């Protein structure tokens, strides 16, 4: 395929899935309502605790929790959903590479997570008077889409590996809290056992939140974290591509493409 049709396919797929997910009450719940509720819990915990001046920290963390949830539930079951809807064979048989069909979907699941950040910041501002003063607005404007992109690529890895597990939704249920915890979205990694840092290092949300916090609070430049986030995004794309190729080959060989 030449560049133009590829870009058109990518954009059309992303927009279609973005609209589709936006119309889903389930994704409305996990991308907007759930982060607001978790942000409120965290705000109240900060207010009743002895740690002050950290409400923006909580709003950003809760927002990123929403991005992770929408990526996890949206991308984790992406291939299974196509199977249930009977569209998987059509997508695989289409002349476009399956990777180009799936990446817009996983990226869309991460993109609707942006609702989470907007929702928690607006909620925090209106009901908890969270000050929305960002130290480096330009760095923040780069950090946010980079984080979403890298989570979208992580979604590709989830989509292409969870398909091997028959109960992907149950597995998604399991992975929501642990990733919130080990990536330091709300709880600093220094409070967790040392080995957790090694896991956090491989996960894009931990670099994403560091970049967003550095851009929001200042003190240090966000560029190294943004760079790490981008690097992980490329690594996930490579890993996802390999896993997807393997899945496609096995499904064709064993004639299990449409089997749920």
């Amino acid at each position, binding site marked *: 395929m030449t560049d133009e049709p590829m870009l058109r396919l990518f954009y059309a797929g992303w927009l279609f899935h973005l609209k589709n997910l936006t119309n889903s009450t389930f994704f409305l719940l996990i991308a907007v309502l759930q982060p607001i*509720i978790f942000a409120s819990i965290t705000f109240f915990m900060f207010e009743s*605790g002895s740690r002050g001046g950290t409400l923006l920290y909580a709003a950003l963390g809760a927002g990123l929790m929403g991005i992770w949830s929408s990526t996890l539930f949206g991308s984790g079951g992406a291939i299974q959903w196509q199977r249930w809807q009977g569209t998987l064979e059509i997508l695989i048989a289409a002349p476009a590479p399956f990777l180009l069909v799936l990446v817009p979907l996983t990226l869309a699941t991460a993109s609707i997570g942006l609702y989470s950040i907007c929702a928690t910041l607006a909620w925090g501002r209106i009901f908890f008077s969270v000050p929305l003063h960002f130290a480096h607005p330009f760095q923040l404007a780069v950090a946010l889409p980079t984080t979403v992109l890298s989570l979208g690529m992580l979604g590709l890895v989830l989509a292409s590996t969870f398909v091997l597990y028959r109960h992907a939704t149950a597995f998604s249920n399991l992975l929501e809290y642990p990733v919130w915890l080990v990536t330091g979205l709300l709880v600093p990694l220094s409070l967790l056992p040392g080995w957790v840092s090694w896991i956090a290092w491989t996960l894009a949300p931990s670099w994403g939140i560091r970049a967003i916090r550095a851009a929001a609070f200042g003190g240090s430049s966000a560029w190294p974290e943004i760079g790490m986030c981008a690097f992980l995004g490329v690594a996930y794309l490579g890993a996802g591509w390999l896993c997807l190729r393997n899945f496609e080959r096995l499904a064709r060989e064993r004639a299990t493409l449409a089997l749920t």
Partner: protein
Amino acid sequence: VIAALRVFFVGGVISYRALFNWIRPGIYVTTMLGSPLFQILFFTYLGRYTHSESESFFVVGNAVQVSSMSAIYGMTMGIANERQFGTLQPLLATPANRLAVFAGRSLPFVANGLIVSAFGFGIGRLLLDFHPAARSLPVLALVVLVTTCSCTAFGLLIGSLGLRARDVFFGANLVYFVMLLVCGVNVANGDLPGWLAAIGRSLPLTHGIQAARGIADGAALGDVSRLVVVEALIGLAYGAVAYGLFRLFEAEGRRRASLETF
């Protein structure tokens, strides 16, 4: 009476096996044990960071709250999935006692809620700073039982709405998360704004968690009996409303021939 009891016990078990035939050990472990485990760890570590309450506060709050996962989601599915699976009409065509049909479904979810909650307390004991006195455990179990029954009654209410509503699981999910906020699970009821605290006090879980915290701190059953009674009464009230709605939607469904339409 014997027929009603048979419907209550045997019917309850059969309906569970029929509606939840998709449950496998892998699903159960990841969803019913894995998720609560990490929920307890997440909020306890967040509590450590914010210095808002003691570790015991978060362990007890979340260990009791996770029992509502089975109670609310399970019970909602236990009623609403009859409609989804197309088995509601044959069920309602039987002359069986409706109260027995309705209430019998709750038994497996109460038992399940107790198991999940016990697992949560076990995690708190093994991994976190939660060391209740051994003599408090039977009373703690009683409080959790009452709270789980109360949450199951609330789940019955949402399940009954599923006989009419198009997307009842959105409601079940939303209620589950709202309970995490307003029922004193991670934020003491007194630290919430008045209107949120009032919502929390009108829901199951709030008084049960308060009672469980008291017991874990060494109080006797007599000291928290008022809270346990209020929790039970709230459960009974929701159960009564749920049964009323179930009968109402059944009658309406028959009148309009809309039992299984969406």
